[in-house]
């Protein structure tokens, strides 16, 4: 038997989930604008991550997609159908809540069957069993949620959403409550499930590593807006704002002024306190005036004594090594350069540990090709992760 409700849901779902289009959506709570003129497209079948610090509007965005909040302005379409103004239970969307929100009075099996019963789907027992097998919880089907561990509850919440084969699966920091090791395992597991079922996943997280590990596309959100969107590698290698540069991994940023354009080589010459640093024009947001020159710590290396830089390398310094931390696979150096601030340098422990001691005078060298240029009007420390901020 097929009812109209499940039929329309099946149409919306297709095989690979549905695309999500958010167009010029704004959400204001009184005077506070949580989401500000947001436009975003998530292609069907993709694993999309909304990454940002707490309060950046990512959860509000997710709740608007789920129908738990209505936007103050703008439209939301799922699978080409405008769903703005419809209510949560009318949308072909399911959410894995941060708190899991399992029904405490129902067994695991009844929890998983809840959505299917509402949409009067056929073959519910079989689908519930399949869903529980997918998250490897078949043997706990008759337990109540209160009798499960956090990780097991998390997987019930996932199965409860997945069995409905939603056009869109929304994940609201679903791994936030798990410990680090379990979280890593669940990340891989979620990725496997997404590939297996081929649905569109929209994952909200403040954990940049989680977003990079799992998602095909990451949108970095800050203050209700999207700062930058792209593949994890793209965002990491070529951040376009200082927020992205600092929030996604770490960055060394220094202020400078564009002084020359080497158009033939496609490079910009930037004066950083008297030192000329080269930035590929294609990797610069601005090609004139004040800029921020950036490079990732693992791209930098230390030059000791009169060691010469390689060809095509920028050099800054000299500076003094203020801290050396041995991290196992790498060693992190902090180098204080007078007038420019502190630089981080990650060196792989190819030689079995630190090669430079605290107090040494060094210079910093890195390939011009890995240098990026940002708008000089942005704060250097925008988006630096303050550990106290995160839950």
């Amino acid at each position, binding site marked *: 038997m097929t009812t109209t409700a499940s039929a329309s849901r099946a149409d919306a779902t297709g095989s690979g989930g549905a695309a999500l289009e958010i167009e010029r959506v704004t959400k204001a709570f009184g005077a506070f604008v949580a989401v500000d003129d947001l436009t975003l497209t998530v292609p069907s079948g993709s694993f999309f991550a909304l990454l940002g610090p707490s309060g950046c509007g990512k959860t509000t965005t997710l709740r608007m997609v789920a*129908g738990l909040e209505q936007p103050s302005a703008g439209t939301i379409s799922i699978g080409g159908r405008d769903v703005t103004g419809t209510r949560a239970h009318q949308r072909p969307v399911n959410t894995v809540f941060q708190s899991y*929100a399992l029904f*405490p009075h129902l067994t695991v099996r009844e929890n998983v069957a*809840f959505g299917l019963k*509402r949409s009067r789907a056929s073959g519910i027992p079989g689908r519930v069993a399949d869903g529980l097998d997918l998250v490897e919880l078949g043997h706990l089907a008759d*337990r109540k949620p209160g009798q499960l*561990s956090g990780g097991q509850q998390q997987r019930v919440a996932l199965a409860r959403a997945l069995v409905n084969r939603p056009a869109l699966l929304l994940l609201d920091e679903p791994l936030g409550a798990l410990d680090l090791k*379990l979280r890593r395992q669940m990340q891989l597991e979620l990725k496997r499930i997404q590939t297996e079922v081929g649905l569109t996943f929209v994952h909200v997280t403040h954990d940049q590593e989680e977003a990079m590990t799992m998602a095909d596309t990451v949108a970095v959100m800050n203050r209700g807006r999207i700062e930058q969107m792209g593949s994890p590698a793209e965002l990491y290698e070529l951040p376009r704002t200082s927020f992205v540069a600092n929030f996604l991994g770490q960055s060394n940023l220094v202020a400078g002024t564009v002084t020359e354009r080497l158009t033939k080589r496609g490079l910009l010459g930037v004066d950083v306190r008297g030192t000329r640093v080269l930035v590929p024009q294609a990797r610069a947001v601005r090609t004139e005036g004040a800029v921020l020159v950036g490079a990732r710590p693992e791209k930098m290396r230390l030059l000791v004594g009169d060691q010469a830089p390689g060809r095509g390398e920028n050099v800054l310094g000299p500076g003094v090594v203020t801290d050396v931390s041995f991290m196992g696979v790498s060693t992190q150096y902090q180098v204080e350069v007078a007038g420019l601030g502190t630089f981080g340098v990650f060196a792989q422990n190819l030689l079995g540990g630190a090669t430079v001691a605290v107090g040494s005078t060094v210079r910093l060298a890195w390939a011009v090709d890995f240098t990026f240029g940002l708008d000089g009007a942005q704060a250097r420390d925008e988006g630096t992760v303050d550990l106290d901020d995160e839950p």
Partner: protein
Amino acid sequence: MSIAAALGESVSGDSAPPPRRTAQRAHLVLLGPGLIYLVLFFVVPVGALLATSLYVPVPGGDVGEYQPALHWQNYTDAIAQFWPAILRSFWFAFLATVASLVIGYPLAYAIAVRARGRKLLQGLLLVLVVAPFFTSFILRTIAWKQILADDALVVTLLHWLHLLPADERLTATPFAVVSGLTYNFLPFMVLPIFAALERLDSRLLEAGADLYASPTTTFRTVTWPLSMPGVVAGTLLVFIPAAGDYVNASLLGNNTNTAMVGQVIDARFFKVLDYPTAASLSVVLMVAILLLVGAYIRRSGTEDLL
């Protein structure tokens, strides 16, 4: 690798270590005062009641003089004579319970869920719910007698609106008795339901909506089952005292077609001085309530309330 294996089974049945002797003694000491109180004021009176229910009149003695016996016929006589009052008691108590639930649930829901987060409003509404307790139960019931009186505003208005035929009255009717019961026991319905709904996690309602349940369905499948312990507690707290109540029936009833068993027991004890019949009726009432409540709790699946 399977995650289930990595997680392990956190819910293994650890058995508690056997309690030590000193701990047992401490338990007894702590239970002592309560046990002594219960024995003195519950077990002994119930025993006396059971004994009295089998007494027979002293041959040739005065009115109200009885001697110990095992006269089981007291029970059959009492039931044969007063079964309408017994049935009526349960019927009125049932009606009052249903009425309190119909009035009390929305009220509790409004206070617990709708006014959630507005502490001042919630506190004020709760005070209003328990405010009647600040005056005597009897005084309030007498006040109802005034309100429902033939020449009072309510009846006049109902007559004028032709909602009540001109030759009908409200006072001394079953309606008045059930209304009185409902009014007097309503807070006992509202408070436990409020307590249950107060704990209701609103995120569960969002989860229901997210899983395609309309607000009505979410209420039926999530809110109502989760408030069930409150509903069961509330219905018991209303039904049990209402079934044994005699104040409402005495003050708002008419002694003939509104007599409740509590009223009969009261009259047997204090007016007719027929202690054995009064005692056997009390036992019948107690046993009947125990059976009904037991069956109800079993059916509603909330045995853990017992």
